[in-house]
C-alpha cells in the first residue's frame, strides 16, 4: 500500500516534468561556459533564470532548443530530455524540436518583411492555417497577446524593421507564440520595453502558463519574483541554486544567491 502511493507520486511528478537536463556542459572552444548543470523544467510553469551578466543564462537557454547548433565552436555534453526523449539524439530533427520549443531572442530580430508576414512566417511554414482567414486570425490573436495589436493594426503591411526597439521585441514575441510552441524560451524579453508593455508581457506570460511552460531569462529580480514559480540562479557557469521562487527570494540556501538578490554581486 505504502509502495503504491509512492509510485503514484513519482508518476505524477514525472508527467509534470517537461524538460529534464542532466549534467549539461557547454564549451565555446576552450571556454567552459556551462558546468554540470541539472535542471528540471516543469510543465505549465514559469521558470526564471537569473544571474550576473556572462554567467551562461543565454547559453543554457539555447541548449534547450539546440540553437547552439548554429554556432560552430559550441559543444554541448550531457542529456536534455523533452518529454522523456533526448533532444540531442541523432534521430531528433532540430527543426521539429524548434517548432515545439520556441524562442524569443535577447536582441529583437524581426525579418525584413511586413509586420503581418513576420507573424505569419511560423504558421505558414508549419502549415498551421488552412486558409487566409485562419492565418489572419492567428496573426491578430498573436499580436493581441503580445500587446502590439492596437499599435499596428492599421499598418500590418509596414516593414517590421521600421518599428521602435520595444515594438520589435513584442513583434518577435508575437511571432514566437504564433507558432504555438509547447515550451517558450524568452531571453530578456522585456529589456527594451516600457513599464506598461512590460506589464502586458508579464500578463501574457502568466496566460501562457495555462497551456505550456515558459522559461524566462531576466535581470530584474522583481520580474522574476512576479512571474515565475521556479527560479534558477546561475553564477560563472554553475547552477548555484534552483528552487521555488518564493524560497529563493525569501530564504536562499546559498550565500552567493543571497548576495546576488540583495544586490551585492553581479
Amino acid at each position, binding site marked *: 500500500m505504502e509502495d503504491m502511493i509512492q509510485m503514484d507520486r513519482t508518476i505524477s511528478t514525472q508527467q509534470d516534468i517537461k524538460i529534464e537536463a542532466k549534467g549539461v556542459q557547454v564549451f565555446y572552444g576552450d571556454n567552459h561556459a556551462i558546468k554540470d548543470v541539472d535542471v528540471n523544467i516543469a510543465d505549465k510553469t514559469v521558470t526564471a533564470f537569473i544571474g550576473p551578466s556572462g554567467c551562461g543564462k543565454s547559453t543554457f537557454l539555447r541548449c534547450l*532548443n539546440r*540553437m547552439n547548433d*548554429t554556432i560552430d565552436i559550441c559543444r554541448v555534453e550531457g542529456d536534455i530530455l523533452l518529454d522523456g526523449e533526448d533532444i540531442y539524439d541523432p534521430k531528433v530533427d532540430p*527543426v*521539429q*524540436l*524548434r*517548432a*515545439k520549443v*520556441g*524562442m524569443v*531572442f535577447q*536582441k529583437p*530580430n*524581426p*525579418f*525584413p*518583411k511586413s509586420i503581418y508576414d513576420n507573424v505569419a*512566417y*511560423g504558421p505558414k*511554414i*508549419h502549415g498551421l492555417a488552412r486558409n487566409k482567414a485562419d492565418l489572419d486570425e492567428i496573426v491578430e490573436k498573436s499580436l493581441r497577446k503580445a500587446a502590439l495589436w492596437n499599435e499596428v493594426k492599421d499598418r500590418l503591411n509596414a516593414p517590421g*524593421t521600421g518599428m521602435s526597439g520595444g515594438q520589435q521585441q513584442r513583434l*518577435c514575441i508575437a*511571432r*514566437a507564440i504564433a*507558432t504555438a510552441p509547447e515550451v517558450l524560451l524568452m531571453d530578456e524579453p522585456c529589456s527594451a520595453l516600457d513599464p506598461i508593455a512590460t506589464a502586458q508581457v508579464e500578463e501574457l506570460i502568466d496566460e501562457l502558463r495555462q497551456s505550456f511552460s515558459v522559461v524566462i531569462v531576466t535581470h530584474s529580480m522583481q520580474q522574476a519574483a512576479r512571474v515565475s514559480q521556479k527560479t534558477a540562479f546561475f553564477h560563472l557557469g554553475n547552477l548555484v541554486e534552483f528552487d521555488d521562487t518564493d524560497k529563493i527570494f525569501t530564504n536562499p540556501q546559498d550565500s552567493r544567491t543571497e548576495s546576488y538578490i540583495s544586490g551585492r554581486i553581479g
Partner: protein
Amino acid sequence: MQSLTLPLLVILGLTISGYFLAKTRALQVAGGDIRKLVSLPKQHALNTVLATAIPPVAAILLFSVYNRLTEGTGSWLFTLVVIALAVTGFALSLIGIKVQTRARTFAERWILGLLIFASTIAILTTVGIVFSMLFETFNFFEQYDWKHFFFSTSWSPNFRGDSDLGIIPLLWGTLYISLIALAFAVPIGLFAAIYLSEYAGSRMRSVAKPAIEILAGIPTIVYGLFALITVGPFLRDYFASPMGLGQSASSVMTAGLVMGIMLIPFVSSLSDDIINAVPQAMRDGSFGLGATKSETIRQVVIPAALPGIVGAVLLAASRAIGETMIVVLGAGAAARLSMNPFEAMTTVTVKIVSQLTGDTDFASPETLVAFALGLTLFVITLGLNVFALYIVRKYREQYE
C-alpha cells in the same frame, strides 16, 4: 614648362619655411605656454602650409588648362601672379597667428576644399566625356537624319556615301547577347554565392571564393580566343548543325555563353558579400521558429539580400552591354536582325570600333556615327548603373 620651375621652387621654399616659422611664432605669441593657445602650434603650421601651397598650385592648374584652350604660352605675368599668391598666403597666415586664432578650423576648411576639388574633378571628367561625345553626335545628326538612325532596321555603311546607319540591328545584337550572358551568369553565380555563404565550410570557402574570382582577372581577349577556337566550333558541331540552325561558328550563343562565364564571378562575388551581410540574428530568428535551412534561405536570407542582388545583376548587365572583344571573336562583325541564336550577329561596341579604325575621314557620317552609337550606349549603361546604385543604396539602409 621652363617658366614653371621658378614659381614651384618659391612655393616649396615658402611652404617649408612657413611650417617652421609658424610653429615658432605660435609659441612666441603664447609666451612659451602652449596651454594659452586656442590651437596647437602644429595646427598653425599646417594652416600656414596649406594657405601657402594651395592657392598658387590651383592657379597653376587653372592657367595650364586655360593655356591649352587658347593655345597660348606661359607669360611672366602668370609667373608673377603665382608667386604673389604664395607670398600672400604665407604672409597672411603668419601674421594671423594670435593666441585666439582658430587655426584648426582654418586648416580643416582648406582640407575640405581639397576634398571638394578632388570630387569635382571626377565629376567634371564624366561631364567632359559626355560633352565631347555630344559635340560629335551633333555633327553626325546634322548630316544624317536622326529618325533614320534610331528607327531604320538595316546597317550597311558605305564609305562612298549613301549608307544605311540604323542602330536597331546593333542594339538587338547587344541586348540578345547580353540577355544570353545574364541567363547563364545569374543563376550560376547566385547559386554559387548561396553555396559559398550558407553551406560551404570555412576551408572550402577559402579555396573556392578566390578560385571563382580568378575568372574575373582573365583578360577579355583571352575569353574571346576561348570563344573562337573552342566554344564556337563546339556549339556549331554539336548543336547548330545537327539542329539545322546554321553553319556558323561565330554566333550569338557562343559570345553569350562565354560572356556569361566572364560575368559569373561578378554576380557570385557581389551576391556572396551581400548574403554574408545579412545579420546572423535574422537566420537565428528563422531557425528558432522551426524553419529548415532552405526555408530560411529562400524566405528570409534571399528576400533580405534581394535588392543588393538585383544591384549586382544590373552591374553585370552594364558590363555585358559594354563588352567588345568577346563579341568580335565569338559572334562576328556582321550586323543582322534575327532570332536564331546560332547566327552571327554583332553589337554596338564592335561597330564603334570598326567605324573608327582604318581610313577615317572625321567629317563623314560613316565615322561620326560612332559617336552617336557611343552616346546611346553611354545613356543606356548610365541608366542601368544609376538604377543599380539606387537599389544598392536602398538596401544599405535596411538594417539599423
